[in-house]
């Protein structure tokens, strides 16, 4: 009995240890390669140069074009996903009856299970031609369709997390609102959404984190041209797609070009790390409020 328990305890400890070990080694590899990179290219140059051309004869190492591309597709994605996701969450909570809810929720989850390659081709072959029919200046590869489709992909994330947040608001608050003569709409927007705002914010931050890390859709539909622009109509490149591009190419290991992907990866890591911590911190504050 005691031996058995010891073994189980040991196994649990081992799996925890392995997880930590893997995380630490990933960070270690990222860090050590980045350090080598930054010993050749100064951080100031990395952050201030306006072009990113490490694979060209005339090399420029400014990360900003990739950051701009990432920022642009993310903003478009959130602009699509937040209003739609929040509307769905509110509808499911305040209007839909139980039967409709059990029917629509799995349907939404399906959106999240479609492979991102499929989304990417959907953006390239359906959304872009459709948008081109009324936006004449739209290039074949562009941030707009990639962002829109990415937004569609993260709708379920925002709607289901926001729905959880809204249904976690005590029922007594809804009764207070109705008791004061609020309509359903006034109850939803005046009381439920504000009371759930921290939870909704968390869902948005996690969605941003997801959008920042998204690779396939942008790789397929947004082009691979690092460009310091906020124009959604032209080809761009994001941090993730750059990493894919170099990883798939024939850049020699150990070269400076090769190390750029670790510097880019480090940048990505810093972003998502900060976002996840922010959401964690908000969640903690939020829990205190209702205890």
């Amino acid at each position, binding site marked *: 009995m005691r031996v058995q328990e010891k073994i189980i305890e040991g196994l649990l400890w081992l799996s925890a240890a392995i997880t930590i070990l893997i995380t630490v080694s990933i960070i270690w590899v990222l860090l050590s390669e980045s350090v080598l990179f930054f010993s050749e290219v100064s951080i100031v140059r990395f952050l201030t140069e306006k072009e990113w051309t490490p694979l060209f004869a005339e090399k420029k190492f400014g990360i900003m074009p990739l950051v701009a591309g990432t920022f642009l597709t993310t903003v478009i994605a959130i602009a699509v996903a937040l209003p739609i996701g929040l509307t769905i969450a509110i509808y499911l909570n305040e209007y839909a*009856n*139980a039967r409709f809810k059990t029917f629509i929720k799995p349907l939404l989850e399906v959106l999240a299970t479609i492979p991102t390659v499929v989304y990417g081709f959907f953006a390239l072959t359906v959304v872009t031609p459709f948008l081109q029919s009324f936006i004449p200046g739209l290039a074949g590869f562009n941030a707009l369709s990639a962002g829109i489709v990415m937004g569609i992909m993260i709708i379920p994330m925002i709607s289901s997390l926001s729905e959880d947040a809204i249904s976690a608001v*005590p029922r*007594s*608050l809804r*009764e*207070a*609102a*109705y*008791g*004061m*003569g*609020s*309509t359903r709409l*006034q109850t939803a927007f*005046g*009381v439920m959404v*504000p*009371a759930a705002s921290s939870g909704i914010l968390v869902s948005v931050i996690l969605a941003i984190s997801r959008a920042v890390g998204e690779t396939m859709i942008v790789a397929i539909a947004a082009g691979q041209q690092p460009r310091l622009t906020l124009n959604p109509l032209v080809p761009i490149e994001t941090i993730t797609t750059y990493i894919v591009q170099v990883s798939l190419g024939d850049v020699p290991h150990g070269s400076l070009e090769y190390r750029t992907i670790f510097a880019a990866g480090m940048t990505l890591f810093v972003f998502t790390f900060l976002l996840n911590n922010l959401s964690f911190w908000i969640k903690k504050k939020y829990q205190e*409020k209702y205890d």
Partner: protein
Amino acid sequence: MNIKHSKLEAINLDAYYGDFHALKSINIAMEEKAVTAFIGPSGCGKSTFLRTFNRMNDYIDGFRIEGQILLDGRDIYTDDVRVDELRKEVGMVFQKPNPFPKTIYENVVYGLRIQGIKDKKILQETCEKSLQQAALWNEVKDKLDKSALALSGGQQQRLCIARALAIQPSVILMDEPASALDPISTAKIEDLIYELKKDYTIVIVTHNMQQAGRVSDHTAFFYMGELVEYAKTKTMFTSPKDTRTQNYITGRFG
């Protein structure tokens, strides 16, 4: 019992949760600007009945009523009645204080805001007046912009009363408003109810017999979905007619 002016009335009221018969042919008329208390053992239907007067049960799946509820002689369950309008006339205070997670000020003026009133002067005046009526003004006048959640339970409940008063209802329904509060806060709420009946018709559900005795003019005793006895509070407590009432108020069950 003789009712001079009936503000609220139930006529042959039956209520059901699905197949469960929660209220059984209730007939009662309640006096205007008086306090009527509903007493009875837990689960006898007091809350269900109270919530028919502002149609709060409408949101419960499978709930339905038969019979009529009259407010000032008018049926409130007909199709032309708007529930949001009805609830501006019939305010409610709940068992657990439920202020919004907003400032004290925003809580009190909430009802005006949803009616589209933006005039700052009106909002501020209503806020002060309502808080004074709820005997809370002196305690909070310097922190109106602080969160309502920082108040004590008793203060929160008086804030909820102020919030209800701000939209000038004529009826206030209270579902065990002091059951979650300490004795001092309870006493404050009871004093407040006594003051408020000058201007409002109050219906209060209470578990506490002494409380019913202290604050109410009339008392209705419910038992398993039936209205067993309805009388002047004094009469009810000194000479109950039904043995079930007798047993309950002498503490033999419930």
